């Protein structure tokens, strides 16, 4: 019922306010409704039938909050340049479905439909533009669909497909299921060797569609709700292998970003590298899991904000290569400051959320994997260098007066970004409050 009301409201708003307000208001709506529901104890069993089971549990609440806020910060870019298509709306609805799914059937149903839509759009683009960009996405998703299909088959055989997540019996979690589930989670997050579909996806979609799809963190959801509580079944060596793969992925994206001169590509690589570090954290103990949750919030908010700023600038200032220094801080002082601050909330600068996150993740990881925990520090150091490279090349340096720019920064549009950055700084200044809030969820 709740989902139905939410969807009706969403479509009404979409109809009445077809432009940026859609994102602002729908995001805000999800936020408020989720909070009210949780406060009044309606936190469970939002909609339930034999097959369709939705739930607003603490995990999905946090993810939906991040998702809503990430839509809100897109205001700066969406107001002027972006009219959401039906495709974007479909992706948003499907993402909400993935977040609120409470059994494997609903989760995979929404996931398959979402990826199916993306694949269809990619194929159309490939045909119309005669481009080969998208091949990796299609190829790797063929493998991904097989993994997901096998996982569904296993859960159907063991009678767990339609059961709510918290009622799935222990017998379901044997090593075969766990391994398949984990591989699927890694595939969803583009961890090596399933990493090649991500650039195809990011560079063929507009950033908002990409952000909406990736923000659901479907890999995280399936991992946290299903696999993590029983991860001891996997054994230490396998977990170590996954840590190594995640670290490799992060380093891979960082290096790729350092060697690229395209603004959007470098920034996307930075985000991917950070996400890979979050997956690393999920292999550690309770402390690093808390770090992963906080990282989810920090990246979930700062990455869309940075991408939105980048998208705004790319349309205001028609240069996509950072090979010469662009010096945009001269024209956009506040945007550049915000971009810098959002970067700080991602790379571990003290007094921001990311410092807390890094401390938790590193200490949690070192506890379980002393040597590879230290490699995490190396990977995050590389990410820091990559961020500064992007920031310096994009915003600093000589600005050629002859260059044309079309749009000035707007105080009103900056407001959501400012609110979010204050939130992330508060998270860094008073982490104990956030840890207290998230602790029951992690526990």
């Amino acid at each position: 019922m709740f989902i139905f009301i939410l969807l009706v409201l969403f479509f009404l708003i979409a109809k009445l306010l077809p432009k940026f307000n859609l994102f602002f208001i729908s995001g805000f709506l999800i936020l408020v409704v989720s909070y009210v529901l949780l406060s009044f104890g309606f936190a469970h069993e939002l909609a339930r039938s034999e097959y369709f089971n939705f739930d607003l549990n603490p995990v999905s609440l946090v993810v939906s909050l991040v998702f809503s806020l990430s839509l809100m910060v897109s205001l700066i870019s969406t107001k002027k340049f972006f009219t959401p298509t039906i495709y974007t709306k479909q992706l948003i609805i499907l993402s909400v479905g993935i977040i609120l799914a409470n059994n494997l059937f609903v989760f995979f149903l929404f996931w398959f439909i979402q990826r199916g839509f993306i694949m269809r759009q990619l194929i159309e683009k490939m045909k119309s533009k005669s481009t080969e960009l998208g091949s990796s996405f299609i190829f790797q998703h063929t493998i991904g669909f097989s993994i997901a299909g096998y996982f569904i088959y296993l859960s159907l055989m063991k009678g767990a497909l339609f059961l709510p997540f918290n009622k799935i019996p222990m017998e379901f979690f044997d090593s075969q299921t766990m391994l398949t589930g984990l591989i699927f989670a890694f595939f969803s997050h583009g961890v090596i060797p399933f990493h090649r579909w991500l650039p195809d996806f990011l560079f063929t979609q507009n950033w908002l569609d990409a952000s909406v799809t990736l923000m659901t963190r479907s890999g995280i959801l399936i991992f946290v709700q299903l696999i993590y509580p029983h991860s001891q079944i996997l054994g230490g060596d396998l977990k170590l292998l996954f840590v190594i793969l995640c670290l490799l992925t992060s380093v891979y994206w960082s290096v790729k970003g350092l060697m690229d001169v395209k603004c959007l590509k470098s920034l996307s690589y930075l985000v991917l590298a950070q996400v890979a570090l979050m997956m690393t954290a999920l292999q550690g103990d309770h402390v690093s899991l808390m770090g992963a949750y906080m990282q989810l919030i920090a990246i979930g908010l700062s990455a869309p904000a940075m991408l939105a700023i980048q998208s705004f600038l790319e349309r205001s200032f028609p240069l996509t290569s950072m090979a010469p220094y662009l010096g945009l801080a001269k024209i956009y002082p506040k945007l550049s400051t915000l971009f810098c601050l959002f970067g700080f909330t991602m790379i571990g600068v003290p007094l921001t959320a990311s410092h807390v996150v890094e401390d938790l993740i590193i200490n949690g990881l070192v506890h379980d994997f002393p040597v590879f925990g230290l490699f995490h520090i190396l990977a995050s150091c590389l990410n820091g260098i990559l961020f500064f490279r992007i920031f310096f090349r994009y915003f600093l340096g000589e600005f050629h007066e002859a260059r044309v720019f079309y749009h000035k920064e707007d105080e009103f549009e900056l407001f959501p970004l400012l609110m979010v950055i204050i939130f992330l700084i508060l998270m860094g200044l008073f982490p104990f409050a956030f840890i207290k809030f998230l602790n029951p969820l992690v526990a």
Partner: protein
Amino acid sequence: MIQLIFYTMVSIPLLFALTLGLIFFMNLPLPEKILSLVARWLSLIVFFISTYLLIGFLFFNFEPQSMSLGHWMHLKSFHFDIDFKLDRLGILYAFLTTSLIGIILKFSKNYLHREAGYFRFILLMNLLMFGLFICSFSHALDLFFVGWELVGTTSVLLISYFYDKNQPVKHAFKALVSYRICDIGILSASALAHYSLMTTHFDDVISQGPTFWGHSSLGFIIGLLLIFASLAKAGQFPFTSWLPTAMEGPTPSSAIFYGALSIHLGPFLLLRFYPLISESYFLLLCIGSIGLFSAIYATLVGRTRSDAKTMLAFATISQVGIIYFEISLGLVELAEFHLVAHAFLRTYQFLRSASLIQDFFNNPTVRDNIFVKRSLSIEKFFPMSFRRRFYLHALHSFHLDFLTSRLLTFTQSSVSALFRLENLMLEGEKFFVKNILRIK
């Protein structure tokens, strides 16, 4: 009472910086005159507080005090506490900070008058001061890192103060890379201390005794990591090359960072951990050799440079190298004295360097003699051909930059080769999509 004074001193720069940040985003008008006045008055208040505490420690036998603001983070066995310790070394560095930043703020009132970035300069100076206070008084490695990183970040942002020119930005990035590499040391040391001792609290770590630090491999690794962490900030070998190029920022920031406060954080870290490091002769030997080598290297290279600020930069590296050497010999009090004296002298020299050349040229009595004669009698013992060749190598910084760039090029080409291998996989995927799935 002392606690209240202490917390006031530490919080003033942070609150002022946060206020300035809000003023910036709210577009509130703040005339330069008022900004400068408030900044100087606040720095004066902080200076008086630090002087009071220093006098108390030096002449009235104030006892070292531990203060705690409780857990900043606490989760199962992991805890990050905000613990401070007010002791002689901490207050000495804090006094150095407040006095020099006060001087710099006074100097920059005229020097940066009507500069577009004056507001930013004041904001970053206050963040720097806060970072240095955290470093001075932190009682655990975790908290020390907070200050350490703040100093590094503000330092990089001040090198790129003239952000509308390419060169300062390039040099800021170079400094940043050095900083980030060495930050691995301090972060790893902190993580390993948590892992092995469940704490990074200085007292708890020291109480583990010489057995852990002198003979266990983990203690030894933590010591090595701390030494490594100190190298970039102190501009010691092999991280020497960023310092002379970092002089692109305005003179006051060069003075405060590379003459006085930031560069001495390296030796300060070693002095803080001296009771631990001194348990291992090998670690002391490491510190001594790095210091001595850097001092000789910087002296030789500095003598081939022709501009005042670069010469001062190499002279600074050289002196900090000597401080390292003193620490390795166990002359801790001499090193502390050397550190303070050197910081004051270098600040004066950096601030003076901007107007020095002009003064020389305008002064008829020294007009023909502005080139300082730089030769040592020892040089005469070597044949001229050797001296020339040696000079040439020194002029090229003994090819350190060249070797670094070669290493980077090698890494880049290796990585590119790996990416080319990956392109083969892409071709396979394209083949699959085109010929098997028949999508064209």
